[in-house]
């Protein structure tokens, strides 16, 4: 969560509201903020820290591990209409990649604003594709696999 907090300014500039959630109580969130997070990130975590005690919310989002009694790592991008655009769920050992989260937010915002589609590995400023009959069978001419990685 500290990594998300460290990139919060960029997420905020994209108009993104971050919400974090675990099965801990709001009191534990306060202590974690004061005892640890505020030492990792200046000012601490700047977004609401939600308590999903009992895991009912996590269950609805498919991230509640009932055997362990915790919500595993799951990240959801929700658009301004309240529609889930992306989800990424990891077992707890591997942390998320906040840069990839930001890339996806930018890609979804671009797609919503323009109606274009973004190919694999797209970054802002790189070519997009305009879906339509003319593009069928012609993606090879417009887009090369190397473009996914540079």
């Amino acid at each position: 969560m500290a990594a998300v907090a460290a990139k919060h300014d960029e997420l905020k500039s994209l108009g993104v509201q971050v919400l974090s959630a675990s099965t801990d109580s709001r009191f534990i969130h306060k202590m974690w903020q004061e005892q640890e997070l505020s030492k990792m990130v200046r000012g601490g975590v700047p977004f609401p820290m939600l308590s999903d005690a009992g895991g009912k919310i996590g269950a609805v989002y498919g991230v509640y591990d009932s055997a362990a009694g915790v919500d595993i790592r799951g990240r959801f991008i929700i658009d301004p209409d309240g529609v889930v655009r992306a989800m990424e769920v990891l077992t707890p050992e591997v942390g998320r990649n906040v840069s990839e989260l930001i890339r996806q937010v930018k890609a979804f915002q671009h797609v919503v604003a323009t109606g274009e589609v973004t190919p694999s590995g797209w970054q802002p400023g790189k070519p997009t594709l305009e879906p339509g009959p003319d593009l069928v069978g012609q993606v090879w001419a417009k887009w090369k696999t190397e473009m996914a990685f540079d």
Partner: protein
Amino acid sequence: MAKPKDGCVQAAAGPIAAAPAGGAKPAGESKPAGGETMTAQVGKPAPDFEASAFVDGGFRNVKLSDYHGQWVVLCFYPGDFTFV
């Protein structure tokens, strides 16, 4: 400003069931606590919920639908004071 009071227990609604679309679902299936019938899926409305929260140094309840009209990133994680 008076110091906000906070009890030990704060009720929050948890998952909030959407109104059944077109009444197609039997009434029993839309109960919020079940968790089986509402599931987050890409391209579908994010299931609404209310949770108690630590916000700006204080405590209040937060609903997902409070943020309608904004992009939201919702992050679940296994627990405070964990290592990753």
